[in-house]
């Protein structure tokens, strides 16, 4: 079992279905204005298995909801609208994900981005899995810094 960095395959389909609004969409001839969705980042233990096949949020393998960590993680700051450069569209949360005074229930190495407003069977739709080196923390501050929001490093990119 392992976690693997990937854009969730279901997310791609859901983009075609209009299930996700990463930014606010202006009114056009077909649709009325769409308020952007809110997204969370949830932390997963190294023993979990989340990857491109992950379709929705699941508590299985997530850090235990103790202390300053709550189920489904923390809210992403989304003040940056999706943009394009050349032929690539991209989107990145506008601030780091931060947990203070966090004690992890085990080693963790992945964050699952989920859509709080778009669900399937009551579970939040998965966007992406972003992995990093195994970490453990005791009563410390965990900061997940976002990549630069551009066409080559943005958190979510479509080329």
């Amino acid at each position: 079992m392992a976690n693997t960095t990937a854009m969730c395959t279901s997310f791609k389909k859901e983009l075609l279905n209009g299930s996700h609004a990463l930014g606010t969409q202006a009114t056009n001839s077909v649709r009325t204005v769409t308020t952007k969705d809110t997204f969370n980042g949830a932390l997963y233990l190294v023993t979990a298995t989340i990857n491109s096949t992950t379709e929705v949020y699941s508590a299985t393998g997530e850090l235990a909801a103790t202390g300053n960590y709550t189920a489904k993680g923390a809210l992403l700051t989304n003040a940056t609208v999706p943009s394009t450069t050349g032929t690539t569209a991209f989107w990145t949360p506008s601030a780091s994900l931060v947990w203070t005074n966090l004690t992890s229930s085990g080693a963790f190495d992945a964050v699952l981005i989920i859509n709080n407003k778009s669900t399937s069977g009551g579970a939040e739709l998965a966007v992406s899995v972003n992995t990093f080196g195994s970490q453990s923390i005791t009563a410390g501050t965990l900061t997940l810094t976002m990549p630069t929001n551009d066409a080559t490093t943005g958190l979510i990119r479509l080329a």
Partner: protein
Amino acid sequence: MAIAFIQSKQNTASTTSVAITFTSNNTAGNLLVVGVEANSTSSVITVSDTLGNTYSSAIGPTQINGGGNQWIQIFYVPNCLGGANTVTASNSSATYMNIVGAEYSVVKTASPLDGAGASAAGNNATPASGTFTVTVDDLIVGFALLSNMVAGSGFTSRGTDTYSMLEDKITSSTSANATFTADSGNWAAQGVAFLPIVDVTVSLTGVLATASVGTIGIAIALALSGVSGTVSAGNITASGGVTQGRADLYLGHKTVVTDNLVTLG
């Protein structure tokens, strides 16, 4: 961030208890360390405070060399409560007590002790806890009993009645020894280590999906009249035996043009 000393206070009393009141309010989440000396036939020392913190023994009690009626012990509270605070140490048989309390920030709020520390007793002018294993950036706290105490090299005194002293330092080594200098005589010394809070910063890497657009297929099938068999073009097949030709223009899988076009005699 490194562990930081916030404040300390010291007091003595010739009775069974002694108290200090921190000059400034304690900050919730900090570490409180209390060193206590008791001149007593009893080794049992207890510590409490007005905030309601629960004190644990970090090490000791340790008896002065030679079996005299003098004891030292270090207590601690991780993740302390915040507010004005008076700390009291008691020993039911004490005739003299010294207390030194210190507050530190950026110390682990759960299980902050790094190992068991060390303690020793001896007779000379250089009290020392003895060597114990620690972690780089640990807070090393020493407490010792002798007369005219001076903090050891690299250590800072946080309070003394000249007979017992609490000292500390942040270590850059994986080995520690709480050392002092003093008048020559019987002594007892202790050393313990506390772990700092270690923050974690991780840089996320984005994910890329490559989008592609499908190719629209165009196929024209032409069947000739009077010809038996099958004529194919692209993925379109017209079966034979027909008397009339037909051409179909397909875009993908959808027929967009169907018409009779050719008739051959």
